[in-house]
């Protein structure tokens, strides 16, 4: 009897502890969409700035899963997100062509910078990203690559190619492929005093810079376009199409575009709105 009573008591306690909130929110907030996005938008703090404004206006909550662009698109492909918000135009267009997304909308751009040791042993400083990459490779100066199929990684591979280098042939111990997000890659570069391609947003909000500084910026090729896509409800019927579309529409409308332009770190604007609707 005693054992029974105590077992019941502990079961009740467990239910009390575990019950509310664990399974709850999934059903309690039907007005919530899941957005698969990139580490750069999440870690730069942009979403913390945008989402409360959107939720206040529409009553729709937004949950953000921050991954590399490639992974975020995969999450969309499997139907585990309602909206994908990423930055790799070629991959986004493929996503639409495969029928997983309805339409790609340009939202905003930011830019990449090449950071490296202040002493700049490779002489990479300048305004031409491919020339800098060529000089880094020429002296085999330590370089940290994301190596994670992210939009930033895709851009980096593009620059090597445009610099006329076959990465497979020239890479060696100097080229450190860390396979991680922007933050961990920056941590590695900071510890190894290495060169790295980073998005400006993450760079500005990154605290552990060590001896690194921006060496290359302003090259037009360093512009980084973000796109937003609704996951195709015909492929995945559970996609919250109405709410997801509302988020896409808000982002490219004057309201959302202004909110994007308003976001600043240390007085510096990080993202520049580009949607057609926002230009009016």
């Amino acid at each position, binding site marked *: 009897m005693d054992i029974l009573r105590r077992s019941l008591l502990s079961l009740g306690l467990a239910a009390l502890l*575990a019950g509310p909130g*664990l399974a709850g929110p999934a059903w309690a907030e039907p007005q919530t969409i899941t957005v698969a996005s990139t580490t750069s938008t999440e*870690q730069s703090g942009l979403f913390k700035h945008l989402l409360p404004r959107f939720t206040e206006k529409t009553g729709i909550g937004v949950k953000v*899963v921050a991954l590399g662009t490639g992974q975020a698109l995969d999450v969309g492909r499997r139907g585990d997100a309602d909206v994908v918000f990423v930055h790799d135009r070629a991959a986004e267009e493929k996503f639409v062509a495969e029928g997983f997304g309805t339409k790609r909308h340009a939202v905003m751009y930011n830019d990449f910078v090449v950071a490296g040791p202040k002493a700049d042993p490779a002489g990479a400083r300048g305004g031409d990203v491919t020339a800098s990459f060529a000089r880094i490779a020429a002296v085999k100066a330590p370089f940290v690559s994301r190596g994670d199929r992210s939009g930033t990684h895709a851009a980096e591979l593009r620059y090597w190619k445009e610099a006329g280098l076959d990465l497979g042939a020239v890479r060696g111990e100097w080229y450190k492929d860390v396979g991680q997000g922007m*933050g961990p890659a920056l941590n590695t570069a900071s510890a190894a005093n290495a060169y790295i391609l980073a998005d400006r947003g993450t760079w500005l909000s990154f*605290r552990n810079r060590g001896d690194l500084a921006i060496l290359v910026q302003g090259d037009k090729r360093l512009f980084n376009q973000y796109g937003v896509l609704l996951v195709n409800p015909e492929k995945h019927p559970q996609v919250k199409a109405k709410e997801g579309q509302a988020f896409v529409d808000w982002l490219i409308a004057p309201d959302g575009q202004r909110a994007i332009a308003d976001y600043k770190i240390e007085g510096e604007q990080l993202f520049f709105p580009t949607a057609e609707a926002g230009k009016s």
Partner: protein
Amino acid sequence: MYETLTDTFSRLASLDREVVAIAWLSLRVSVSAVLIGCAVGIPLGALVAVAHFPGRQGVVGLMNASMGLPPVIVGLVIYLLLSRSGPFGPFGLLFTPAAMVAAQSVLVTPLIAALTRQIVADAEAHLGEQLRSLRLSAWRRAGILIFDVRFSLLTAVLAAFGRAISEIGAVLVVGGNIDGFTRTMTTAISLETQKGDLALALALGLVLMALVVAVNAAASLLRSYAARAYG
């Protein structure tokens, strides 16, 4: 280094309600997973200890090896199961706390089962002959032995809790580290490390360790109280 540490303590003082909410979620997820792990693992471990059946050594080996299941792999498998494109997709559990509980349950159940088996097997070495002479079923013998070693089992439960609350691989993959929804202590620490805010990451780490110490202290108090009252 020194600078980071002094910064850590100043950050510790300014930790806010958000951190409390994150710690509370971590606690709820891991405790739920451990409770599920106990409900399955303790009877399972005890049964394997007392019952004799062909292939028993294999089962024991499998249980012991499963204590070392890599959290990321468990997370990945649960992710594929719960994904919209997976068999349990229609329930929409991916990226929810429930998914994290599921993944951690899979992680801790073998641990609890394996440790229970060892503890019960040791007890059976003393009492087994008597129990068998009473011609009790394996279920009854397992039940009696579990009750007999109930205080020792606390160690298994605490080990499981320690594994659950400190792992990141599984909760990150199936929870998605969503701000205010599935962000746990470990994923928050990892995020702050990624942002290069090492002081805040360390401060959160101290909170997590305090949480683990508090749970262990509470368990040992409960144990000595129960031992005096019912032992």
